[in-house]
């Protein structure tokens, strides 16, 4: 019926449909192509990488790039570091967001509006990179992993979204629990948190991806190369092709062989790709909740 009413079957309409299918297939492939390129090449031998500029499948399946990086102490250390920082950071972010959002969701909490306004101010204005850097330094956090976690411990946007979510939970549930004598903390733990599991899971994933991908914090706050996170390691191995500068810093610097670059990119990307399907289930909804005003 709809088909007839909307006259998709005109010649121009059909031609458009075909063109559209082709176009979108290409777009989908382009989105993935750079990563597939890297993935395939990470499994090729060094000889093949030099010999063939482009291939869809390696002639010889070769794991040596992975063997090399996983036997390089600075790489394995970077992976372990990043996993730990991401895990601890996500828990802290989630905890602080919930504990701050819940009281702010109470409309009659004295002082709530002042605090909310102060939070909103930070959305549009900040002291900037240098003053924040100096605070981190004065707190003695430079060259500690806390510098990667604490300065970003609460995302004001997420805080407001979670607060709005708490605020929109049916008030009756809470009231009945309070009639039964439950305190605020019990209500939060027994009623509010279980109802908020999906939104909190979504934010946990967003936080985890954010910390995992963070490059600016380690760049600013970690000078000690032995403390590097995976993203810093990746940047040194692949993006820092400024060979002359690299050699000025370290005369023995040898540019990493190609296969290693590909393998490091794959390892830096894979956790995000593993999380992605879970993220995708919720983020569209999350974006729309975010559009709702507080």
């Amino acid at each position, binding site marked *: 019926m709809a088909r007839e009413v909307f006259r998709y079957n005109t010649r121009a309409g059909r031609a458009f449909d075909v063109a559209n299918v082709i176009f979108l297939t290409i777009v989908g492939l382009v989105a993935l192509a750079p990563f597939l390129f890297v993935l395939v090449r990470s499994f090729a031998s060094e000889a093949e990488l030099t010999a063939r500029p482009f291939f869809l499948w390696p002639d010889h399946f070769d794991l040596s790039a992975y063997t090399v990086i996983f036997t390089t102490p600075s790489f394995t250390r970077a992976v372990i570091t990043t996993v730990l920082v991401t895990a601890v950071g996500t828990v802290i972010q989630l905890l602080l967001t919930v504990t701050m959002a819940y009281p702010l969701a109470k409309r009659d909490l004295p002082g709530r509006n002042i605090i909310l306004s102060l939070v909103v101010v930070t959305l549009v204005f900040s002291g900037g990179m240098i003053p924040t850097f100096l605070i981190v330094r004065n707190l003695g956090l430079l060259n500690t992993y806390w510098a990667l976690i604490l300065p970003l411990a609460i995302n004001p946007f997420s805080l407001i979204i979670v607060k709005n979510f708490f605020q929109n939970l049916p008030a009756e549930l809470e009231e009945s629990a309070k009639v039964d004598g439950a305190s605020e903390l019990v209500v939060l733990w027994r009623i509010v948190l279980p109802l908020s599991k999906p939104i909190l899971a979504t934010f946990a994933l967003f936080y985890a991806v954010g910390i995992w991908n963070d490059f600016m914090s380690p760049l600013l706050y970690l000078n000690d190369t032995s403390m590097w996170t995976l993203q810093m390691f990746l940047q040194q191995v*692949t993006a820092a092709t400024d060979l002359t500068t690299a050699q000025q810093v370290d005369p023995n610097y040898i540019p990493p062989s190609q296969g290693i670059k590909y393998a490091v990119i794959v390892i830096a990307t894979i956790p995000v790709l593993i999380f992605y399907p879970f993220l995708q289930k919720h983020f569209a909804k999350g974006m729309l909740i975010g559009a709702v005003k507080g």
Partner: protein
Amino acid sequence: MSSTLTETSPAVPAPAPVTVRVPSLPPRKRRLWARMLRYRWLYLLLAPGVVYFAIFKYAPMYGAIIAFEDYVPFLGMSGSRWVGLAQFQRFFNDPDFFRLLGNTLILAGLSLVIAFPLTIIMALILNEMRLMVLKRTVQTLIYIPHFLAWTVVASLTYLLFAQGAGPLTHLLNAMLGTHIDFLSDPAWFRPIIVLQDIWKNTGWGTIIFLAALASVDQEQYEAAVIDGAGRFQRVWHVTLPAIRPTIIIMLILQMGQILNTGFEQIYLMTNSLNRQVADVFDTYVYFVGITQGAYSYATAVGLFKAVVGVVLILGANWLSKRFNQDGIF
């Protein structure tokens, strides 16, 4: 949906067993005190977050005062010499100022002229796709780059555009008949940045437009069909006008962000050869402040950017309200 700004006592007096005797206070203050006491656990919960905002958001705002000083770490904030607006004068008289402003505005302009319309076109094309399996698959694929780290995007770019060996270097040079080193050629810095932007964020950007497209009134399409509109006419006369408010809001929002070039992206793509076109406010603050230690000067540059940013955002908010839409705040 708007929260009440005035403090009102709860409609139903909660059965608070807490009795407080503060006879010297007037009744209103006593009620406030009682409420605060009743919520004491909530304040305890609130405390860590408030401390966070105080230390990592508000202390740096106060610390930005060093923009008006000649800050020496050894002397500290209170011991350093007050120089008033000297740092700002130095910055505005520096030829770097117009170079940074130009670089920033050109990148923002390119994004507005190229990436923004592409997002809308992409959303329209996805919306016209009637093969749901393909639509959903493509959506899934084009959202992925949004979640990749800038380090990964930069690394991919470096490998694809590597001098000699990179496949895109091969392809483009063969097509153009040139021998360009895309990564160090200043003329190619901006196109590559825009390309990265498109690859990483176009898919993600379609979400908001697709949501708007989903709520277009179907009866309007039927009416248009009865009036004899073809497929392209329907898009032009029904779909586009229907999502116009969304387009305007997103446009205004982007105008408010015009000075915010992504630090990580630009930093990662900057090298000694393309510096002249690559430097923007954020990376300049880093190079001057962190690597050269000119704290006060760099803070002044950052503060200038932040203040202009606030003006732009508030202006954008005012504009979006004028367009009969809800503001963001």
